[in-house]
């Protein structure tokens, strides 16, 4: 069916022929007879990575195949979303080894983006937890791969944005938990120096990230709230919570029912919001025990929050810079704060080391923030790209909708190698996306 598709940023939007399937052989036949395909999960990547002429909707390929509750191993078809998985595993005392800031992504999407979470510095990215997986490659064959089985396909598929083929089945390990709660600590940081020092001081915590105010100048430049946490132990819960430590109380969902007019979001409203957010914490440090949902997925509580940016959509700009280039981070933050176009709070995190072929994370600082699409934005982001390049950083392909191709080829050290593997499995450009064309990864 011809459909208008856009991912989470609502930019870009295209007309695409969408196909869905429930049996693997249906998909294999389809792949062998078509070109210009791209697999699409729940549309939560922000840009154009899963947009193409023909999209393969994975959402009906959503069966849980095996759950080893003794050893914490889960095997699923790739279209299952993380929120469904959490509903199944948390009551049995298991948690996702890695989760991004939304639970509304598919397992296949987690692989294709090689997603990271607040625990990257401790547990790595999603690829670090995959036992094995199946990929339907360009010739319509299913190939099983793992770090020690067809490793070239495995590493080019993790973070490979769907260009090696369609991920259909994934087996991965889970994390043992005793409760569905997180013991969190929030610490206010006066400025960028302060928060970077705090990251170092709190690096032994499993989970950490900071909300950073990108608009603040002067002494309070980079003021933040560092949030760290650990899975709570039963004795840390209240008596009432302890009665059912693995069950969360039901919560109501809010939604943004339609696109808000874009004038609502301006420098003033964002400044007010950031002020409120920073100053809601009266004390410098707050310690409490919270359900896992608000800790990991604060924005999931507001369905369709992306509509808050209006009809023109937004792009999320996420880059990483090597640890030794804190000065680059300062430079970029200054540019953003001078421009005053950034929106609400941005997220700052320190990544740990990761060996990978094409995945985004590397040891260093990563900053993510939203920019509503407007005139001049892309020129401004091109300028930021130059700084990222200059300091040896790179951009996250899952968020990207506009990077120039030379920026990609210069910033990903394994780009050539990745492209060669893609060519090997992606026969005759069976799989192409707007992004792969834009970055000249296919054709």
């Amino acid at each position, binding site marked *: *069916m*011809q459909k208008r598709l856009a991912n989470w940023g609502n930019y870009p939007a295209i007309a695409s022929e*969408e*196909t*869905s*399937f*429930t*049996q693997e052989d*249906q998909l294999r036949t389809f792949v062998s007879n078509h070109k210009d395909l791209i697999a699409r999960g729940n549309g939560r990547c922000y840009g154009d990575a899963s947009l193409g002429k023909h999209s393969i909707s994975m959402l*009906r390929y*959503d*069966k*849980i*195949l*095996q*759950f080893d509750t003794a050893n914490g191993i889960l095997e699923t*078809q790739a279209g299952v979303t993380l929120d*469904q998985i959490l509903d*199944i595993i948390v009551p049995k005392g298991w948690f996702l080894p890695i989760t991004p800031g939304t639970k509304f992504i598919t397992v296949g999407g987690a692989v294709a983006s090689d997603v990271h979470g607040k625990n990257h510095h401790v547990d790595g990215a999603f690829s670090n937890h995959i036992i094995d997986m199946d990929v339907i490659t360009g010739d319509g064959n299913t190939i099983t791969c793992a770090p020690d089985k067809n490793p070239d396909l495995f590493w080019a598929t993790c973070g490979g944005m769907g260009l090696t083929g369609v991920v259909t089945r994934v087996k991965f390990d889970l994390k043992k938990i005793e409760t569905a709660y997180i013991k969190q600590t929030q610490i206010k940081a006066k400025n960028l120096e302060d928060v970077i020092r705090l990251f170092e001081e709190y690096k032994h915590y499993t989970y950490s990230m900071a909300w950073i105010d990108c608009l603040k100048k002067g002494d309070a430049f980079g003021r933040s709230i560092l949030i760290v946490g650990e899975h709570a132990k039963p004795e840390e819960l209240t008596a009432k919570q302890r009665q059912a430590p693995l069950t969360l109380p039901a919560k109501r969902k809010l939604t943004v029912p339609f696109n808000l007019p874009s004038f609502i979001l301006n420098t003033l409203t964002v400044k007010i919001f950031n002020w409120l957010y920073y100053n809601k914490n009266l004390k410098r440090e707050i310690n409490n025990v919270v359900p896992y949902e608000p800790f990991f997925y604060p924005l999931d509580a507001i369905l369709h929050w992306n509509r808050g940016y209006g009809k023109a959509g937004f792009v999320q700009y996420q880059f990483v810079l090597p640890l030794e280039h804190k000065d680059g981070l300062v430079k970029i933050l200054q540019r953003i704060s001078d421009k005053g176009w950034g929106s609400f709070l941005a997220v700052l995190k320190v990544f740990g080391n990761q060996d990978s072929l094409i995945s985004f994370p590397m040891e260093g600082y990563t900053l993510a923030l939203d920019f509503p699409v407007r005139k001049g934005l892309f020129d401004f982001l091109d300028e930021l790209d130059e700084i990222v390049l200059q300091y040896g950083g790179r951009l996250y392909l899952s968020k990207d909708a506009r990077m120039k191709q030379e920026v990609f080829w210069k910033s990903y050290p394994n780009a050539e190698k990745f492209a060669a593997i893609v060519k090997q499995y992606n026969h005759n450009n069976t799989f192409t996306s707007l992004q792969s064309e834009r970055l000249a990864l296919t054709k």
Partner: protein
Amino acid sequence: MPSVLILGAGSDMAMAIAREYASHQYDIQLAARSGNALVPLQQDLQIRYNVTASVHDFDAAAFDSHAAFFASLPAVPDITICVFGYLGDQEKAQRDWSEAARIIHTNYTGAVSILNIVAEAYAQRGSGLIAGISSVAGERGRMSNYIYGSAKAGFTAYLSGLRNRLFHARVHVISIQPGFVNTRMTQHLTLPPLLTAQPEAVAKAVYNGIRKKKNVLYVKWHWKYIMLIIRNIPEGIFKKLKL
């Protein structure tokens, strides 16, 4: 635990119905031409909902096998839902009897064959419930799909007669008219969003309709009135339309 048999369990709609029933703690018997293809769904139901699910080979067009199939089930199901159907290619079916026969056998003859057997068992036992997924296409023949429509018309009439007969044996029969549903069967069609249901919505409607023992259920209420109008267009006008 109560149990439900789903005939034609490979379709998107059937999968959604299976999940709906499993979420209400029914044991699920899944039947389709290739039982093997249903194993992922079987695992899924057992892991997600902690129920027992079984898979069975069932070919709607292999009439002779139906009695043995029903006898082989792990238990006589409390509810039987007949979901299978085949839209087919109308133009091909006009010229090619094998396509026409496949449409008729899947949507009508095959359904009659298996439901006759289920009905006998339920009538003898004096309990049970049969649900048939028919189609609004069966309410009036249209040039674009009258072979499918006529088979579904036959099925609708069959269900109505069966309901009448089994009422006296305390067995309930429900006819379900889903209207457009967003499934693999219809993915090549451009459907009006307002009139198109998601499989999960159909599944919920089927579950509630069965629980409330409805006789005829339109999943989206609009369809009841659309079909009322379509049924009442005088034939002299209707035949001139290109529907």
